[in-house]
């Protein structure tokens, strides 16, 4: 039963107030929940409009080729086809990209990865569109694909882009570089290519507007960066691209880059008809970036009692054909590559490579996930070398507030690494009594009754930067209106923050409720009619859009207090907004907000920024580059059938500091879900690529954890307020994805005695088969 698994949330609960329901700190229900359980929530693939056409994309079947000819006449002649477009039809800049505009909207004379878009079709039925794609004739001259990331960085391979095949090299040097240590452990580690595997496929509806612009309804992660790229490609002013967020079926980083946005807009503008585009699951595997595969060499030096002296690492990330987020991913892997540990000397080089493999970019915990598998594997090796318990070596070396990280940045808020490890270590272990054969490795396949099954326990700890780093101007915009509706005060909050399921809509409502003492709060659909909220990524929306909504609400509250002060003779500074009224500090009501406002409304729009960061020194990687650090620890318990190589994760318990749990249920949901994605990377999830070609683009062959794979979780949430952050909160979404993978692999190692230097761990690794 899950009943015996209790979650605990402990902390000072700053910001909570008992006077209104639905404020911060409560597990307020999500406003979209009812629509979602009824099947009435409108996702981007559910949209429909009279007279709409269907779009489809012709993609390269080759990883690397020169296009010798492109003939569309036969496709255009098919009845029901309204348009066939190629690179010649891109009205503006035929290039896009989050950090570098190196990726064509439609391929010109060369394709650099399997799945690269080459042509577009608009037709009256999706099947007509698919058949038209078959009629587009493309000639390809095959080129040898560059598929080895190490060769791309260090070897002699053809340059896939001007400037060569190193997207970015981040070099971190900290402390005395000539230091030596009594105990040295080293190892090589690999991380496979993981897919975000959100369930709602890339999709949207583009509607041509009479002013020459386009209204786009789409599932994405950052409306304004989409708009800038779309407008440039369409060759029109950004104001003519109006984006409204459609329902998002998960994101996890995969919607940061453009997918169908420009394509659908081009087809809609060409045909003058609304146009819907929906990727199939197979196409989705080619339609978004993935998690970078990593090849890592780590060397740790320590004293005989297990205190770290130095860490040296080389990390090579395969960025695939285009840059996407690779520069930021490389920076994370390099600057966080020493892990959540105090290490006097650090020498890390991280390279992101261009290859002809599928493009890689943002996925939950990016850069930090890969590095953590390396440094956590090393910590277990070190523990063994010095004869310490795996939990103890982490406790002994864990960062604390006031320490410097590898970049020289000082931790100026809680860093309870040792405490998190102690907490997961001290949780009750699952008993060894088997209640149900279905809980054994192999599960419902009934492959064992316990014979050949061994158990292991492992630990993992991770560190993640929260918000955008390296001096990025990272802000969010909030518009807050206080008015009277039906005799009651009501608040409308409008931001462009993208709800991907994590609960940022609920959170905005909770903040308005707390700040203005008003229960009736509505949050408008995110769109480009308000300023940018920044991206829903880097675990940043609670922090940055939360901060913006808080600031806008406080300006509105200030105006309310000023009005009440002018009317009552009280000092404005002595007044508070509580339960729909302005009251004195003693709780005496001065005036109801509804009475005070009457027909008037108060509106404030605020652009809010977190404290600035700096860049990284190009030679040493030193700098105050990160806004906030977050930590999580896992303890995994696994059963392994050593005869069949099957793994069952029996328990996956987590402790995480969240600063302040703005919505405890949502926090737990993030920790559960993030841990599950880490489990997937540990034991099953990998896009298998050979010669640049994806071999498993389906949910039949790319395995995502099911209910049978995920164990019950015990979660311990700490609330150690960060004085620099709104409400003391700390970003939640990514840290649990980072530490669960190494914890599970460590448990498998303990159970089997195998070295296991690669994730995902496959049955053949456990049976030592070739």
């Amino acid at each position: 039963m899950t009943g015996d698994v209790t979650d605990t949330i402990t902390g000072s609960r700053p910001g909570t107030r008992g006077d209104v329901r639905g404020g911060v700190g409560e597990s307020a229900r999500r406003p979209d929940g009812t629509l979602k359980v009824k099947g009435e929530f409108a996702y981007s693939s559910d949209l429909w409009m009279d007279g709409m056409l269907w779009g489809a994309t012709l993609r390269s079947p080759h990883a690397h080729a020169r296009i010798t000819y492109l003939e569309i006449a036969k496709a255009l002649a098919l009845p029901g086809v309204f348009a066939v477009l190629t690179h010649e039809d891109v009205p503006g800049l035929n290039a896009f990209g989050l950090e570098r505009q190196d990726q064509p909207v439609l391929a010109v004379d060369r394709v650099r990865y399997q799945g690269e878009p080459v042509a577009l079709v608009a037709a009256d039925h999706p099947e007509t569109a698919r058949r038209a794609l078959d009629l587009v004739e493309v000639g390809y001259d095959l080129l040898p694909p560059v598929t080895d990331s190490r060769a791309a960085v260090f070897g002699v391979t053809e340059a896939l882009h001007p400037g060569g095949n190193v997207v970015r090299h981040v070099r971190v040097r900290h402390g005395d570089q000539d230091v030596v240590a009594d105990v040295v452990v080293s190892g090589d580690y690999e991380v496979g290519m993981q897919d975000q595997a959100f369930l709602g496929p890339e999709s949207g509806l583009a509607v041509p507007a009479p002013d020459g612009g386009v209204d786009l309804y789409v599932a994405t992660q950052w409306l304004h960066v989409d708009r800038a790229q779309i407008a440039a490609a369409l060759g029109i002013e950004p104001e003519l691209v109006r984006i409204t967020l459609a329902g998002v079926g998960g994101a996890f980083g995969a919607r940061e880059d453009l997918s169908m946005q420009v394509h659908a807009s081009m087809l809609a503008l060409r045909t003058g008809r609304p146009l819907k585009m929906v990727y199939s699951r197979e196409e989705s595997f080619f339609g978004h970036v993935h998690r970078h595969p990593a090849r890592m060499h780590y060397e740790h030096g320590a004293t005989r009692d297990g205190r770290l002296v130095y860490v040296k690492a080389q990390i090579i990330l395969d960025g695939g054909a285009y840059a996407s987020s690779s520069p930021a991913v490389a920076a994370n892997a390099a600057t966080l590559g020493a892990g959540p540990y105090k290490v006097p000397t650090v020498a890390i080089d991280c390279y992101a490579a261009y290859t002809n493999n599928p493009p890689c970019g943002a996925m939950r915990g990016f850069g930090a996930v890969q590095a953590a598998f390396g440094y956590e594997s090393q910590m277990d090796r070190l523990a063994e070398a010095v004869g310490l318990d795996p939990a103890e070596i982490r406790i002994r070396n864990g960062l604390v507030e006031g320490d410097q990280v590898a970049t020289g940045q000082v931790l100026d808020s809680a860093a309870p690494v040792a405490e998190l490890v102690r907490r997961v270590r001290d949780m009750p272990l699952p008993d060894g009594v088997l209640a149900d054969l279905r809980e054994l490795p192999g599960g419902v396949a009934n492959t064992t009754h316990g014979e050949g099954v061994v158990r292991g326990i492992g630990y993992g700890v991770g560190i993640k930067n929260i918000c955008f780093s390296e001096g990025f101007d990272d802000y969010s915009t909030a518009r807050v209106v206080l008015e009277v509706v039906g005799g009651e005060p009501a608040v409308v909050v409008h931001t462009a923050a993208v709800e991907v399921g994590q609960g940022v809509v609920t959170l905005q409502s909770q903040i308005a409720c707390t700040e203005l003492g008003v229960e009736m709060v509505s949050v408008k659909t995110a769109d480009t009619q308000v300023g940018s909220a920044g991206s829903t990524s880097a675990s940043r929306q609670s922090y940055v859009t939360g901060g913006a909504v808080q600031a806008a609400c406080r300006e509105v509250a200030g105006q309310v207090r000023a009005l009440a002060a002018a009317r009552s003779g009280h000092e404005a500074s002595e007044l508070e907004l509580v339960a729909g009224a302005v009251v004195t500090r003693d709780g005496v009501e001065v005036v109801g907000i509804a009475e005070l406002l009457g027909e008037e409304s108060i509106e404030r729009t605020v652009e809010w920024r977190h404290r600035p960061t700096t860049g990284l020194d190009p030679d040493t990687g030193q700098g105050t580059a990160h806004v906030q650090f977050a930590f999580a620890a896992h303890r995994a318990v696994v059963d392994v059938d050593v005869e069949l190589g099957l793994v069952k994760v029996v328990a996956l318990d987590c402790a995480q500091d969240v600063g302040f749990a703005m919505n405890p249920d949502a926090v737990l949901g993030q920790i559960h879900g993030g841990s599950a994605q880490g489990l997937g990377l540990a034991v099953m999830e990998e896009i298998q690529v050979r010669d640049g070609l994806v071999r498993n683009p389906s949910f039949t062959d790319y395995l995502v954890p099911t209910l049978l794979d995920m164990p019950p979780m015990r979660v311990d949430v700490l609330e150690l307020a960060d004085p620099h952050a709104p409400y003391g909160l700390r970003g939640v979404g990514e840290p649990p994805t980072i530490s669960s993978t190494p914890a599970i692999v460590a448990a498998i190692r303990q159970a089997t005695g195998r070295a296991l230097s690669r994730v995902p761990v496959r049955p053949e690794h456990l049976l030592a088969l070739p």
Partner: protein
Amino acid sequence: MRVNLTVNGEQRIADDVWPGESLLYVLRERLGLPGAKNACEQGECGSCTVYLDGLTVCACLVAAGQAEGRAVVTVEGVAQGDSLHSVQEAFVAAGAVQCGFCTPGLVVAAHDLLSRDPDPSDADIREALAGNLCRCTGYQKIIEAVHLAARGVQT
């Protein structure tokens, strides 16, 4: 071709159906019922789970013509009028909904499970709902929701 079927108790007709279309496509694109979801369209994720003559199926794996003359119940037919079914209420109350794309399929699958077994164990729930992928929740709160609904059904 024309397909006649009963959907959520109502007689419905879909015209101009291409024979290659799935029941899922007919429901979503021709009958205005997008509740069943199009996550994989290859029978692996369960997001399009509906009842076909009382048995749960992946609507993406049913050819439109196979639904001729048969009775379909979708997630839109689970609620009783304006009030949520206890399974739906439990998913909201337990926090089992995040992005929600898996939710319609899970609601139908959990509804089916509880109609057969009013008080399933954790292991029973895991087995019964193993065909429904969720990428957001890690499933913990989905199990809690099914238990919550079971208690609601029993009382």
